[in-house]
C-alpha cells in the first residue's frame, strides 16, 4: 500500500502485537483477590518512563485518587495519552510528563490550562503529538481488537494529522483516502468505576467514555472503585460487566475517588474545589502550594477524604444526577 502522507509526529509508544498477545497469554485467569491500597497499586504497576493513560477525564468519573498517588510517588518521565482536565494538570504541574499524545488538555469552562502552557512552552514536555479525541480512542480500539491500525475519515487534510503519527493511504478496496491510526498499547491505565468486585469485575453507570477500549488496550490496569461489591452481584448482572476481571491487575477502594469531579448518580462536581485548582494553577508557585496541600502533605486518599470533610461531600451528593 502506497503511503500518501505521514504525520511528522513521533510514534511515542511503538507496539508489537505478538508481544502483546504473549503478555496477555501469561496474564492470570484465576479469580484472585486484587484489592490493595493505592500506594501499593501505583508502586507495583506504574513506573518511571512508562506509557500511561487515564479514563474518563478530570471532572468526570476520573481516577483522581490514583492520579494524586502517582504525583505523591513522583513517578517520572511519563509518556501520557489522551485528554485531561485536573488529573493531567496535576501531573504536568508536578513535572512528571515527558511526552504527550495530546487530544485535549484544558480547564473546559474555565479555559486553557496554565499547567499545560507552562509545561509545553518551557520545553519541560519534550514532545506533543496531536490526535483528535476520536482518533486516540480508535487507536485504543485497534489495540483492543489486536490489530495494528484502524482507518478513519477524520483528521485528513489538517495539521492535526500533520503533527500526528498517522499515515494516509488509498483504501485498497475503493481507492478513497483514509488516515491509518496506529494501535496504542498502554503500559498502564487508571480507570475509576462505580463498582468492582475483589477480582476486578467492573460496572459503570452512565456514559462509558472510552473505558472499554482503554481497559483492553493496557498491559497493566489499575481500577479504583467507589464500592467493592460481592461477586454474586456481578454474576447476577453479567450484562453490566464493562471490564472483566482478567484485564485487571489491581482494585483500589476509593470512595469519592473522582473528587473534585463528579460520579454520575453518586455525587456532582465540587465547583469550589475545581475553581481552587483553576485559581491556584495560574502560577507555578500556586500550583505547587496546591500539590503540597492536597497531595504531598497527605499520606493518601483517606487523609484527603478527611481534609475535604463530610460537609463538602454531602453537598456534592445533593448535586448528583438523579434518576427520576
Amino acid at each position: 500500500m502506497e503511503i500518501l502522507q505521514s504525520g511528522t509526529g513521533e510514534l511515542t509508544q511503538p507496539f508489537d502485537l505478538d508481544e502483546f498477545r504473549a503478555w496477555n497469554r501469561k496474564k492470570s485467569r484465576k479469580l484472585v483477590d486484587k484489592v490493595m491500597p493505592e500506594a501499593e497499586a501505583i508502586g507495583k504497576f506504574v513506573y518511571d518512563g512508562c506509557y500511561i493513560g487515564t479514563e474518563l477525564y478530570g471532572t468526570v468519573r476520573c481516577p483522581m485518587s490514583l492520579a494524586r498517588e502517582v504525583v505523591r510517588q513522583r513517578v517520572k518521565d511519563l509518556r501520557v495519552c489522551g485528554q485531561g482536565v485536573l488529573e493531567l494538570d496535576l501531573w504536568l504541574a508536578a513535572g512528571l510528563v515527558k511526552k504527550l499524545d495530546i487530544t485535549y488538555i484544558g480547564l473546559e469552562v474555565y479555559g486553557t490550562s496554565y499547567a499545560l502552557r507552562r509545561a509545553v512552552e518551557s520545553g519541560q514536555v519534550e514532545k506533543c503529538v496531536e490526535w483528535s479525541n476520536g482518533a486516540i480512542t480508535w487507536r485504543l480500539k485497534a489495540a483492543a481488537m489486536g490489530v495494528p491500525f484502524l482507518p478513519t475519515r477524520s483528521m485528513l487534510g489538517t495539521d492535526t494529522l500533520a503533527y500526528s503519527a498517522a499515515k494516509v493511504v488509498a483504501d485498497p478496496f475503493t481507492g478513497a483516502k483514509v488516515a491509518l491510526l496506529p494501535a496504542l498499547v498502554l503500559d498502564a491505565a487508571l480507570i475509576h468505576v462505580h463498582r468492582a468486585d475483589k477480582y476486578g469485575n467492573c460496572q459503570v453507570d452512565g456514559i462509558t467514555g472510552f473505558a472499554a477500549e482503554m481497559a483492553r488496550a493496557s498491559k497493566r490496569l489499575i481500577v479504583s472503585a467507589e464500592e467493592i461489591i460481592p461477586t454474586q452481584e456481578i454474576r447476577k448482572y453479567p450484562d453490566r460487566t464493562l471490564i472483566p476481571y482478567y484485564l485487571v491487575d489491581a482494585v483500589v477502594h476509593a470512595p469519592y475517588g473522582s473528587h473534585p469531579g463528579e460520579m454520575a448518580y453518586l455525587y456532582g462536581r465540587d465547583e469550589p474545589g475545581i475553581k481552587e485548582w483553576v485559581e491556584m494553577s495560574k502560577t507555578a508557585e500556586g500550583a505547587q502550594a496546591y500539590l503540597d496541600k492536597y497531595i504531598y502533605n497527605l499520606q493518601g486518599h483517606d487523609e484527603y477524604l478527611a481534609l475535604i470533610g463530610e460537609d463538602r461531600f454531602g453537598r456534592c451528593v445533593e448535586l448528583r444526577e438523579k434518576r427520576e
Partner: protein
Amino acid sequence: MKEQTYSKTELMICVAARLFEDGATCFIGTGIPMLAAMLASHTTAPNLVPVFEFGGTGAILEELPRAVGEARTWHKGISALGICDTMENAQRGFIDYGFLGGAQIDPYGNLNSITIGDHDHPKARLPGSGGGNDVGSLCWQTVAIMQHDARRFVPTVDCVTTPGFLSGPGARETAGLPKGTGPVYVVSTLALMDYDPATCRMRLKATHPGVSVDEVLASTGFELLLPARVEVNAPPSAEELRLLREEIDTEKLYI
C-alpha cells in the same frame, strides 16, 4: 416600549441558537455551543437531539453542562454510551450539525485550537483538537461560534486543527474527507457569516443590531466577502434573554 439591554455574548448565543434545526442531530462542543443548544431546545428546536462526544445522546437540557462528559449531557437522554458510538455515528453520516469554538478562524473556516506560533516551540499552547477535528471532519454541516476580532479572524491560522474548506473548493474531498460536508456558518460577537459557494470564502450575511458593516470588516484580519445586501439580525427577545439569564447560565459562567 422598554429598551432591552444585552451583551454581545448574549446576542451571539441567541443568533447561534436560531440556527439549530428542530429534530436534527447536533454535536455540541464545550462552552458557548452548549448555551446555544440549550436556548434552541427551549425555543425553536424543542426536538433537538444533542450529541456530546463522550457518549450522551438526546439529553433533555434542563441544566447547563459544564463538561462534555457531565451527567447533564445525558440527562433524561436517549442513550448513554461511549465516545466510539458518537464519533462512529458521525463517521457513518448520522450527525447533521456540529457546533464548535476555536481560538482562530481563517477565510475558509479552518479552526485552530492547538498552538499560537510554531507547533514545536509555541508562543501559546492551546488545549488541542479534542473532538473538534472529528466534528469538523465528519458532521454534515458545521457552525463555528467565535469572539470577533482581528486576532481571531486571521488570514492563515497557525495550525489547522479542525478542517473548514481547507484551501478552498474541492480541497476537503481531495484530502479524503467525506463528500458533501463542511462549514456553513460562523456566528460571532459582531455578525453572522456564511460561505460563498463558488470560492468557499467567508462572507458576511447579517450584522448584529447596532454593528456597522465597517466595524465587522475592521475587526476581520482578512478580506470578508460582502453580499449584495447585508441583513441585520434580530436582537434577543425578552424571552430569549430571560431564558439565558434565569434558566440557562444561572451560575453566570459565560454571560
